[in-house]
């Protein structure tokens, strides 16, 4: 009963304090929200990039263009040889007609161009998918050299340089993301304990008076801890909410429908979003306890 009353008092006091200096708390919750928003943005980008890269890696392709009018037998032996290579994940035969169809699908504006030229200009090809593992790039190099001179192969085309550049870019994003992410988690803890310290500081007189009329330390500090939890939680909610809004307005609309990134862009999984909010609350508790640590008796 007494414990319940004390708890009710903590919550009431926390809300009174939040309401009485609502401007300052709005600003502080905003600051926390922005920190968590930035963190959330990176998590979103990172999770999407990670998925996209996984997808793209699965698509590293070498295209073997075949000589015109190649015998089916030779083509089949090529296919068999490729399929037997441990580095190869799959082989697909693209006929001249299929190549033309693809061209028409990709460039609707130029629909009639091939016909104007009078003849199907696209060669048949074998599209080789390389297994997405650590040696993928080395394997691409080896395969290219190996099949450039193979019977029936006119020309080998591959994506190696772009893939290298992309890998560099991804590595860069990971480094920056990790760096900023780490700093921002620290910044959030900083911000909350900062605000609570200042809140306690603005009420130092009151806290002294409470102790002098016989309030226990726990009783004096309780409302601050609850206030920290509420601030952290609201900041986290606001951050995730803003992130979701921004996602819908900017990224979602522009990219969700197109598949230029290789796949649909998705929001943070619900668990991660919840983790941000709960993380905010935990940080609130820790921040308030840290800031109240050195209170005298």
């Amino acid at each position, binding site marked *: 009963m007494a414990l319940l009353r004390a708890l009710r008092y903590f919550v009431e006091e926390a809300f009174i304090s939040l309401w*009485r200096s609502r401007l300052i708390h709005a600003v502080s919750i905003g600051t926390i929200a922005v920190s968590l928003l930035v963190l959330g943005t990176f998590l979103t980008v990172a999770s999407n990039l990670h998925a996209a890269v996984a997808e793209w890696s699965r698509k590293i392709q070498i295209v073997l263009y075949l000589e015109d009018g190649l015998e089916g037998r030779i083509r089949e032996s090529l296919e068999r040889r490729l399929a037997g290579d441990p580095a190869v994940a799959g082989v697909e035969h693209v006929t001249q007609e299929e190549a033309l169809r693809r061209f028409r699908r990709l460039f609707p504006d130029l629909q009639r161009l091939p016909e104007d030229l009078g003849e199907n200009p696209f060669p048949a090809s074998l599209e080789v998918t390389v297994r997405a593992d650590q040696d993928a790039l080395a394997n691409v190099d080896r395969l290219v050299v190996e099949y450039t001179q193979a019977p029936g192969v006119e020309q080998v085309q591959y994506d190696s340089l772009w893939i290298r550049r992309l890998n560099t870019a991804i590595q860069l994003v990971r480094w920056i993301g990790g760096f900023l992410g780490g700093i921002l988690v620290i910044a959030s803890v900083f911000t909350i304990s900062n605000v609570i310290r200042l809140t306690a500081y603005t009420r130092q007189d009151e806290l*002294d008076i409470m*102790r002098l*009329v*016989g*309030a226990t330390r726990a009783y004096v500090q309780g409302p601050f801890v609850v206030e920290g939890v509420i601030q952290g939680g609201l900041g986290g909610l606001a951050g995730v909410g803003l992130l979701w809004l921004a996602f819908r307005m900017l990224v979602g609309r522009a990219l969700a429908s197109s598949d230029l990134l290789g796949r649909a862009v998705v929001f943070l999984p619900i668990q991660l979003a919840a983790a941000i909010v709960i993380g905010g609350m935990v940080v609130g508790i820790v921040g308030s306890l840290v800031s109240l640590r050195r209170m005298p008796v």
Partner: protein
Amino acid sequence: MIQAFHVYKQYDRESCALSDVTVHVNKGEFCFLTGPSGAGKTTFLKLVFREELPSQGQIIVGGRNVTAIPDGQIPLLRRSIGVVFQDFKLLKRRTILENVAFVLKILTVSSKEQKRRAFTALKSVGLHHKMHAYPLQLSGGEQQRVAIARALINDPMLLLADEPTGNLDPDMTMEIMTLFQEVNSRGTTVLVATHDREMIQRLGKRVIALEKGRVVTE
């Protein structure tokens, strides 16, 4: 109730706020603590409810040695003592009713009971009609009376009042003294620090006089 043995209090190197103070106040007594400005009256009261620790000596309050009680028990000691602070020490952001009720709130008394008793206490100092005002909306004397009401609300075993009538007119002063005597007659030990010679003379109680940190007359 209060037994101080050879108490010294030194805030800084140069001077001694209290030197070799040995004082006994019996249970149920009503007595005055007097002396010129800076004599050490407030310091002595601070030692009694353990806002400060003496530099030397022992103080026993209500059977507890306050120089040696653990931190966790300090709130219990303070709850059994009513204090009227010289600078009032009211919570600026709470109404005076809430200020007075706060002493009961930390005892987790039900909020209805809190209000009832706080209202009664404010009424006894003539401020019930201002109960929803904040301290800074009150005159100096009114604030002082709120501090008095807060000190009395929980029927303390010991009442320490530091210059409780410095901002009150003579009539109000007598009313408050009558109130203190009533409380005293109900068993509370009362110790009032004051400069008001007229009041001391009129009440004719025991007087402990300090000067430069030493007891000069008992």
